[in-house]
């Protein structure tokens, strides 16, 4: 017999987790879970995180950061004027998640917990340095984690033992000399699963790259920053030769697979070309 828990508060949610001994499956917008038929059918005890008001509704913008409930639908983020201004790369990646119908249901928490290397928001959350607040709370405190720590393998997270994502805190990038890039390559323009994507966030002045963060999507089993590639560029003056080198390093650093959507060679090459596009755009900005 299936059991559905719809806790109305964080306290109720944590109590269910403490007291229930069965295997619990957490669900938010259900747009991924319901498509994974076997997983969906096998889930006998479901905990609906969208029932918890704080997780479903909380969206708190401060001067330098935003705290987002893990089950807030991404369409609410897309429509948010301050987030459009301060986190344009997050908005762009959310706009690429499925379709309008999906965006009205899908959540950042679900995108992360589903742990697909093709999750559209993940490379962006990674370069933004998003902080994941993991429940249940211990002594009134959430455990703080990151995308890189939580994502273990495709479909596998470190959230075993009935831990869940409650909130996502995203610091706003320092605006001065900031540069960002996000592009997803799929079979078609919209409503497509990514073959390869790339998120870049950096700060540079007069062609001198102060800091750069690079995270590719769909080309590694976990979403990780490409730190070897970053090291090539950081604190260097951007030139065409340096861009060439960086693209080559990134192509070696990623580890794509061949599957129904694309093959290893295409993914590796296009990933490098996305970085080339990102860095050339940056170069042109300085040339202007």
């Amino acid at each position: 017999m299936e059991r559905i828990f719809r806790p109305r508060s964080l306290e109720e949610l944590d109590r269910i987790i403490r007291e229930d001994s069965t295997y619990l499956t957490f669900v938010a917008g259900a747009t991924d879970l319901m498509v994974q038929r076997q997983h969906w059918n096998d889930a006998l005890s479901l905990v609906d995180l969208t029932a918890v008001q704080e997780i479903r509704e909380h969206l708190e913008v401060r001067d330098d950061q935003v705290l987002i409930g893990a089950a807030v639908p991404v369409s609410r983020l897309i429509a948010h004027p301050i987030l459009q201004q301060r986190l344009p790369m997050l908005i762009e990646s959310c706009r690429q998640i499925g379709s309008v119908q999906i965006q009205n249901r899908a959540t950042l928490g679900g995108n992360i917990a589903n742990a697909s290397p093709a999750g559209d928001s993940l490379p962006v959350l990674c370069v933004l340095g998003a902080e994941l607040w993991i429940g249940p709370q211990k002594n009134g405190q959430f455990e703080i984690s990151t995308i890189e720590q939580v994502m273990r393998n495709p479909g596998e997270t470190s959230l075993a033992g009935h831990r869940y994502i409650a909130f996502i805190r995203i610091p706003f990038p320092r605006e001065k000399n900031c540069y960002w890039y996000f592009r997803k390559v799929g079979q078609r323009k919209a409503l497509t699963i990514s073959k390869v994507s790339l998120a870049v966030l950096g700060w540079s002045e007069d062609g001198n790259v102060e800091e750069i963060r690079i995270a590719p999507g769909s080309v590694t089993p976990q979403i990780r920053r490409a730190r070897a590639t970053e090291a090539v560029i950081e604190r260097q003056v951007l030139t065409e030769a340096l861009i060439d080198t960086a693209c080559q390093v990134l192509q070696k650093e990623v580890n794509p697979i061949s599957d129904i959507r694309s093959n290893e060679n295409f993914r590796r090459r296009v990933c490098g070309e996305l970085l080339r596009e990102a860095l050339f755009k940056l170069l042109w900005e300085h040339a202007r």
Partner: protein
Amino acid sequence: MQIRFFVNGKEVELSVSPKRRLLDILREDLDLVGTKEGCGKGECGACTVVMNGLAVNSCLVPAFQLDQCHIFTIEGLRERPWFPLLERAYVDHGAVQCGFCTTGFVMSTAALLANAAPPLSLEQIKWQLAGNICRCTGYAKILAAVMDLSQQQSVVNEIKLDWQSAIGGR
């Protein structure tokens, strides 16, 4: 489990299996067969309905998340005073061919006009309707119909008002 929600403005109370899809509840339990099933996995938009004012795929909404929600289907939209104008635009532009995708497109169109800030560019309309697939028309006629509607300020205002007072639900 017992759920209480609103369909086309009327309260419905049902005893359902918790993981049952909204799509099946509408078609099989409530005999609202205007909503179609295409792919059954959120890619084609044929099953689009409006949930609390927003377009969603009814194949991806489980029964247990329906409690207290407001659902509108094509049968409910047909009763709205502005609906004939939307219908007229689709007819005038020849935006209907086999008709299977049409109810989904009409739901998305209404939600788009209700929720988006005008003026809408063709690019914006394309993006907003990307969750609906049509295999007959090549989209040009559908886009022309929606573009035409989006430029009729009185229709758009009427839909927006109706959304606020009735369809949005909360």
